């Protein structure tokens, strides 16, 4: 019975990992930005499914809510609003960089292969009961006791980003008064307000 469950998990892993890699390749290859965005959403959702198979349902849910549900909605929104055209195929510049890129990719793959085939140091059986680690309560307890300082620093960082974005977006905030009103320098926000 245990082996059956394992088999199912392997099948699920192959399915979602394949989906994630496929979507990622499609994201890079697409020339229409909206198709790229949709592929990226596919990547996020397949990753969330992988987290579920790894007994981390909280991280899976947060992955979907934040990345697929909030960040990518904004990206799609902006693409739709600005009506970004399909990328044109430009003649390639800086050909000299190609061998370097190939070399770096080779190193990356070699590293991955090294870890997969030669590093056996990780314990065969996890030391702690896995099923507890991904639970909401254990994550919450960890965040507010052991990792309180990093957690607070992250929240301050996010707060700074919010305040910064508001200062930049506010008309006449940093700019001299009336600078945003001239016809030529219309901001994206004004465009958005008009079109809605």
């Amino acid at each position, binding site marked *: *019975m245990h082996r*059956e*469950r394992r088999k*199912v998990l392997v099948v699920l892993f192959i399915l979602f990992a394949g989906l994630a890699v496929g979507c990622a390749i499609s994201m890079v290859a697409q020339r229409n930005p*909206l*198709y790229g965005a*949709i592929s990226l*959403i596919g990547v996020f*959702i397949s990753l*969330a499914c992988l987290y579920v198979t790894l007994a981390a*349902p*909280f991280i*899976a*849910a*947060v992955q*979907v*809510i934040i990345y*697929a*549900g*909030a960040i990518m*909605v*904004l990206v*799609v*929104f902006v693409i*739709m*609003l600005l009506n970004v055209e399909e990328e044109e195929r430009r003649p390639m510049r800086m050909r000299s960089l190609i061998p370097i890129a190939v070399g770096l990719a080779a190193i990356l793959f070699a590293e991955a292969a090294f870890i997969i085939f030669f590093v056996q140091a990780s314990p065969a059986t996890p030391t702690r009961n896995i099923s507890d680690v991904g*639970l*909401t309560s254990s994550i919450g307890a960890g965040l507010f006791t052991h990792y309180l300082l990093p957690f607070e620093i992250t929240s301050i960082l996010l707060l700074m980003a919010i305040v910064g974005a508001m200062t930049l977006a506010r008309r006449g905030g940093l700019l001299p008064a009336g600078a945003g009103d001239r016809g030529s320098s219309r901001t994206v926000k004004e465009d958005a307000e008009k*079109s*809605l």
Partner: protein
Amino acid sequence: MEDLTHAAWVLAGILIAFFVVMTMVAYTVLAERRILGFIQGRLGPNRVGPQGFLQPLADLIKFIFKEDIVPDKSTRFVYFLAPVIATTAALMTIVVYPFGPEVRLPILGSIHLVIARFDVALLYVLGITSVGVYGVALAGWSSNNKYSLMGGLRSAAQMISYELALGLALIGVILQSGTLDLYSIVEQQAGHLGISGWNVFWVQPLGFLIYLIAAIAETNRVPFDLPEAETELVAGFHTEYSAMKFALFFLAEYVNMFTVSMLATTLFLGGWNGPFVNRAPWLGLFYFFGKVILFLFLYIWLRGTLPRFRFDQLMSFGWKFLVPAAIVNIVLTATLQWSPVFDFVSKFLKTSVGWWG
């Protein structure tokens, strides 16, 4: 073997829940048309079958056999994908709702009337709901029609804004229950006669109100139905959709209404709790669906009564009133959790299960 039987059970549960919800959605549409007819002093559809009872079936047949028109300059792949996303996202949340308590079946023994019970059920619901935005936004974009695009943009903006208020309104309940598992949240709300423990009576009336308003906006219903305001945008994001693809959007809207009502029932109105449920567990099903139907009636009633918001009113209402109110609710709940009086009253209301019933 045990795993296989479990999987078979879950599949059977999904099928049953799917058909029940679909049937109820179909009859919600009929009820909406009849009740709107009553509100507006006319009859509504009453010709197909007794009192129009077979009208949903007739509508379905009509939708299937209508001509399916795809605009020439639409982005075809996305145009086909959008209704699929909308419907799938709407239907996927049905599996987590607890429809009833533990019941005893003749041969099969006792089972819980919930399909999937897991640690983060509430977050799962929020995640799936947030993915549902894509259906509407992509539909508007891919139709290559300015009205559709406006509808899609409006709807994306509206859903992002109100999702925030919706999520914040739920945090009060989470703080109070200390869990994200919907089944446990319902179990905690059993009190005297199965009524006194409901979250809506105890500290969360404000949260309930915010959730209700945000939920109506989230499902794009009157008075927040700006994405499809006929007078300005023809039909909004689904202007270019016809036949079964339109029907899928229609279905998604009603299923969303249904799931949002189920969440409200589960979190605020005690789910399947009601008088005498602990003696006759099957009553729980009736209480649960009865409360859901009350919400659906409220939706229809509002549609017959209220005019539509303006877009700037919608935005300022969401951001300047609902979100701050939700934050106040969180602070209030968190503060009250500390006070000993709260603890005492809460224990009194919630833990004495079945005093008289």
